[in-house]
């Protein structure tokens, strides 16, 4: 994990260091289906996915990309500091895609007695397709 980040260290407009995932595998989609209890065959059965109109077969769970977005925030700010992750699903992700989670700081503010940071976040594949877009909120400790 990265060094501890303090509220005073970050500024509005700062980029958060991106996090790249290795290519998504079909085994990972089976694992995610089992771990999340999302058994929609669109994510695990090529024949089913093709019948549902996906030319290349299965597509990844949108929630897997959101999981990467959450992991990205936790990796940067520390899991204990993550308060909110919110995304819109904007495009499909396929096996083999390498997902990059990135973001920047939009606002620093106080809420519920904490120093909070609102971040813009998105996940993008190696093809440049933006697959989720949204925001995250983290609470950062103060050097006080």
């Amino acid at each position, binding site marked *: *994990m990265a060094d501890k980040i303090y509220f005073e260290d970050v500024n509005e407009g700062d980029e958060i260091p991106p996090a790249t*995932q*290795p290519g998504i595998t079909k085994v*990972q989609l089976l*694992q*995610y289906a*089992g*771990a*999340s*209890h*999302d058994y929609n065959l669109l994510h695990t059965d090529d024949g089913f996915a093709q019948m*549902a109109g996906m030319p290349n077969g299965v597509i990844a769970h*949108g*929630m*897997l990309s*959101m*999981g*990467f977005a*959450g*992991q990205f*925030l*936790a*990796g940067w700010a520390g*899991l*204990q500091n*993550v*308060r*909110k*992750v*919110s*995304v*819109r*699903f904007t495009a499909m992700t396929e096996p083999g895609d390498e997902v990059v989670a990135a973001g920047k700081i939009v606002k620093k503010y106080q809420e*519920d007695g904490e120093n909070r940071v609102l971040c813009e976040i998105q996940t993008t594949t190696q093809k440049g397709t933006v697959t989720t877009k*949204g925001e995250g*909120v983290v609470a950062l400790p103060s050097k006080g």
Partner: protein
Amino acid sequence: MSINMDSVGFETEETVHEVDRVSIKWFALALGEKNPIYFDREAAKAAGFADVPAPPTFPTTFRDAQDAKLRDKVGFDFTKLVHGSQEYEAPKPLVAGDVLRIKSRVADIYTKEGKSGAMIMVKTESTGRRPDGSVAFVGRSTIIQRP
């Protein structure tokens, strides 16, 4: 089947879920996590957690028969659904051993004109509470039924 617009306000019965280490482990592995806090209680404790913590999107695993009831009530056509958006908010991470009382409700349903016709937007909200009644997490979803 068509969407039952009157299902706005429908609320599921409360169900109880216990957050456990094994479920966290498999969920974290599926996300490609390597951080030992998700797999090792001692590492989690050294990082300040009471037990192994769950990743921020872990509440997605709390699916049960009540969710199926909510979907039946709304009357979704499963061949036309798209997950539009998702949000999870929590005052602090969930950790193994947490016992949560979860309820979901249909928060809103409205139509939106899309390129190929009217899309029906269904907003749902799930709230997980701790035994003392405090909110442990809130999940908000938008499910879109395409024309």
